[in-house]
């Protein structure tokens, strides 16, 4: 692999020579320096060099046809907490890789302009040398870990660099992130969140003054994402570490970052303090970063915010305060929450009744009543799995498609004892349901999905799918009934074109209308243009779409999806949610295991909460978000809008910004986000019966 060679030497020497010029040029060429940062920092710029200074940086990957970075100018002050945002392909990751010298020392493409870290250029310094100043945590952090145990891995970089105090450094880094209990565990036995912290500790062991973390929240549950951000915040405050994160989630940006860099097609559009940055909703929308819900709500409901005369709220608390002011004296239009309070576009065809109907399935029953309106008609029998399983399909309860009866699953660990993942579960999945399976990492969500496919067999009880005990049929025979889309889409792409992958199942079974079916599915999933490309080389969002197309072509009755929205930017995520809504016409029951509470709020009708192998709640999204004890136990974080609603003391849980607007009874301002937030209008079929 390339290291430093002619690519570096070829670089424009003029840029290096001009680099030591006074910084003011950079400050003025910046559309807006991070003005809201501590004033003394701005004042003392001359004294202390800023952490990272990028000037006129243009970079093209070797063999690429276009520049990935085009004339980037950027200053990051020491001690800042910067979020780099932007759509897929905007050059965020490439920019961050210039900070630690991977560009241009490792990726030695064409480079012009300069990058200076702590006042010194990166061209003459090796990546390893820069690693002591810039720590880097990759997006797929699991592959960053190269040693067998946590302690070894954390000590790896200091050892390589020959630092005599490597042991203390490793211990420090482990202690700083609370990893001591795991220090002697094997890397592969860690959960995703622990692996992420290990990768972070490995970077921290060199005590860098700058830390770059690529998408810290992409693959972990919301509470663990918050844990990582809390660690970063503490490092930033207590140790003065400059933190740069690449982030898609505007909520996290709003909560943790002090300034925001917007990347757009290889350039920095602006670098602004967070409040100002988030007020520029149009720019963010254009870069596929929808505003956080608190910002959207405030813009829709508070005229001063919409006009730009008041800064946007960044946290739930700020938003609540602002809205409380705004609604003071205005009694809610519909204090008891009849369906009419839900804005048009929702609730006309059963969406709301469905939520209410399934609410009765709480195992502990009592708390479910809270947050449920009196008006919602209930589906008879849906609340009682025991009684309904006796009825066949027809008027009345929907037929169960799959059921777990006292089902459990355990596996043997390397150390010897068995680890129980699921413990005597009783669950039914019925016709027309949209089920979200939530819970912390390791709660047993993926295992439950595997049990339903027949790929794993229960060691307690039975799993019945489509009337057949999974022990009695092979997983291949069940494949026509149950389709499982795993967490990593590329694992499902087995053929050399999208079309061949979609056709694989129907062709393998010699179904008569295979060609027509495949074309129809490709058309529907908007994949016709990509049909002859190799699916494994597509972007993350396109790969997701391909896997959904594969699933659709299998025409399953039960569709199981594991984390369909993880690692996607928000535009692709919304696409996936939209597709899921479309799919409900074709698939009788969909079960999604997810950490994404927006997906839960916008798509699901029923939520099953797993914790340590047990179902601790089985309800609808609105009731779930109204139950703090369950949320805390399962490490769930409701969408901001639900938190605002709860803080305002609204009688019902708001699932979307439009719900909140409706409940508060304030006529929404002109640019209200209803349009983009409007929920699906597709109701489950059984509601019409």
């Amino acid at each position, binding site marked *: *692999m390339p*290291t430093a060679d002619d690519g570096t030497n070829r670089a424009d020497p003029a840029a290096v020579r001009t680099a030591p010029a006074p910084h003011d040029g950079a400050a003025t060429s910046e559309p807006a320096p991070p003005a809201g940062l501590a004033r003394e920092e701005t004042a003392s710029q001359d004294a202390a060099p800023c952490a990272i200074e990028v000037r006129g940086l243009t970079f093209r990957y070797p063999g690429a046809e276009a520049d990935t970075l085009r004339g980037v100018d950027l200053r990051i002050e020491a001690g800042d907490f910067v979020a780099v945002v932007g759509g897929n392909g905007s050059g965020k990751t490439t920019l961050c890789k210039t900070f*630690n010298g*991977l560009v241009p*020392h*490792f990726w030695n493409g064409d480079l012009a302009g300069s990058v200076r870290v702590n006042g010194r250029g990166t061209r003459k310094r*090796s*990546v*390893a040398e820069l690693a002591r100043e810039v720590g*880097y945590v*990759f997006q*797929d952090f*699991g*592959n*960053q870990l*190269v*040693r*067998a*145990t946590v302690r*070894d891995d954390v000590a*790896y*970089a200091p*050892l*390589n*660099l*020959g630092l*005599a105090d*490597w042991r203390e450094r490793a211990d420090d880094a482990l202690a700083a992130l609370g990893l001591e209990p795991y220090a002697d565990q094997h*890397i*592969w036995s860690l959960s995703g969140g622990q692996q992420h912290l290990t990768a972070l500790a490995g*970077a921290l062991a060199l005590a860098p003054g700058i830390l770059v973390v690529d998408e810290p929240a992409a693959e972990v549950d919301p509470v663990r994402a918050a844990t990582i951000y809390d660690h970063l915040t503490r490092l930033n405050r207590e140790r003065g570490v400059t933190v740069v994160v690449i982030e898609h989630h505007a909520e996290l940006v709003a909560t943790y970052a002090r300034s925001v860099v917007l990347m757009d097609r290889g350039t920095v559009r602006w670098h602004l303090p967070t409040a100002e940055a988030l007020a520029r909703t149009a720019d963010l929308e254009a870069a596929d970063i929808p505003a956080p819900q608190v910002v959207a709500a405030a813009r829709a409901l508070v005229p001063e915010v919409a006009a730009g005369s008041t800064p946007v709220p960044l946290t739930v608390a700020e938003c609540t305060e602002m809205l409380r002011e705004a609604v003071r004296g205005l009694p809610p239009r519909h204090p008891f929450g009849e369906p009419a309070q839900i804005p048009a576009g929702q609730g006309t065809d059963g969406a709301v009744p469905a939520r209410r109907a399934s609410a009765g399935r709480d195992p502990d029953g009592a708390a479910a009543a809270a947050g449920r309106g009196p008006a919602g008609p209930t589906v008879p029998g849906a609340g009682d799995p025991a009684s309904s399983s006796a009825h066949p399909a027809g008027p009345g309860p929907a037929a169960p498609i799959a059921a777990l009866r006292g089902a459990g699953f355990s596996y*043997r660990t*390397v150390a010897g004892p068995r680890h129980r993942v699921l413990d005597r579960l009783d669950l039914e999945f019925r016709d027309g349901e949209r089920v979200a399976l939530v819970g912390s990492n390791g709660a047993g969500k993926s295992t439950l999905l595997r049990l339903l496919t027949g*790929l*794993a*067999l229960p060691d307690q009880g039975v799993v019945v799918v489509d009337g057949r*005990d999974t*022990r*009695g*049929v*092979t*997983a*291949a*025979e069940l494949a026509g009934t149950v389709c*499982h889309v*795993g967490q990593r889409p*590329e*694992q*499902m*792409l*087995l053929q050399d074109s999208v079309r061949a992958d979609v056709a*694989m*199942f129907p*062709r*393998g*079974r*010699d179904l008569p209308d295979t060609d027509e079916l495949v074309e129809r599915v490709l058309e529907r999933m908007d994949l016709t243009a990509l049909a002859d490309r190799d699916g*494994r080389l597509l972007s993350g969002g396109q790969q997701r779409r391909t896997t959904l197309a*594969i699933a659709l072509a*299998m025409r399953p009755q039960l569709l199981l999806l594991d984390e369909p929205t993880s690692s996607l930017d928000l535009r692709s995520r919304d696409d996936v949610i939209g597709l899921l809504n479309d799919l409900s016409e074709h698939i009788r029951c969909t079960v999604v295991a997810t950490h994404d509470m927006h997906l839960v709020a916008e798509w699901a009708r029923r939520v099953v909460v797993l914790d340590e192998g047990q179902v601790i709640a089985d309800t609808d999204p609105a009731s779930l978000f109204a139950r703090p004890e369950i949320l805390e136990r399962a490490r769930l974080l409701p969408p901001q809008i639900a938190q605002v609603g709860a803080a305002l003391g609204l009688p019902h849980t708001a699932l979307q910004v439009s719900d909140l607007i409706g409940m508060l009874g304030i006529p929404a301002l002109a640019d209200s986000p209803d349009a983009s937030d409007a929920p699906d209008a597709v109701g489950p079929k059984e509601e019409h019966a």
Partner: protein
Amino acid sequence: MSARTGLDRSAVEWATLELMRVAYATRGGFLAVRDPRAVVWWYVIGAVVPWFTYDAGVLALLFGAALWAALAARIGPLLLGLFVLGILGDLVYLLVLLLVLREDPAAIGALVVPMLKLGTVSLVSMAAFASLDPEKISDALLAMRAPEIIGFAVSYGYRMIPVLVDEFRVIVDGHLLRGAPPRGPGFLGLRALVRVARILVRSFYPLILNTAKRTRTTVEALETRGFTATGAASGAGRALRLAHLRFTPSDGVLLAGTLVVVTFAYWAGPMLGLR
């Protein structure tokens, strides 16, 4: 369709687990507590001495000692089972040869000797490598001044085992679920065999591609973690990494004892009267 017992699944799981246990030396044993350099030297002795004799008696004693060492090093049921299966296969092969060719049974002796040699070497290898986790192997290699890349390859190879196994399982499952269903075993089970072979061949490319994609990050990360930094392999880094290795008297006893056993085998073997 008869009921599935789940054996098909759990067998794969058990094999994977067993592999991990062997790879990471989780069972302990008399070699696992020794200095890795001593273990490597022990292995070298054990693997070399069988080749200096043609006496079946000496080889039988060496084989016996190696078998004891393998059991004492707790190589685990998977490796032992595979080994026994191999030996049994060889025996059956010998018998068939004997029956079909009606040769002089004495010719068997000529085959027993290499079999004992190979058996001894295999047992010694299993005992040594089931007792060394990847870190120990790479430390030992580094201490013996092997190129750093070899030590790293060992360590990283072990790290990738679970990843590869996982990836492979998911891809094969995908083929089984979405590919053409089996149409019965066919003549002598040939059709089923062909199906499995096709799946294995077709799994290869996605397996390698997916793994290669993961490795891209690893290579970049290695760069940022000083793997290629000058001095990592030779200078201060090496000294620091090896500082914890201690060659104790017990390690000396291990090697000396091994030499004693070998000498005894060479002395006593010919007296057994085996040719």
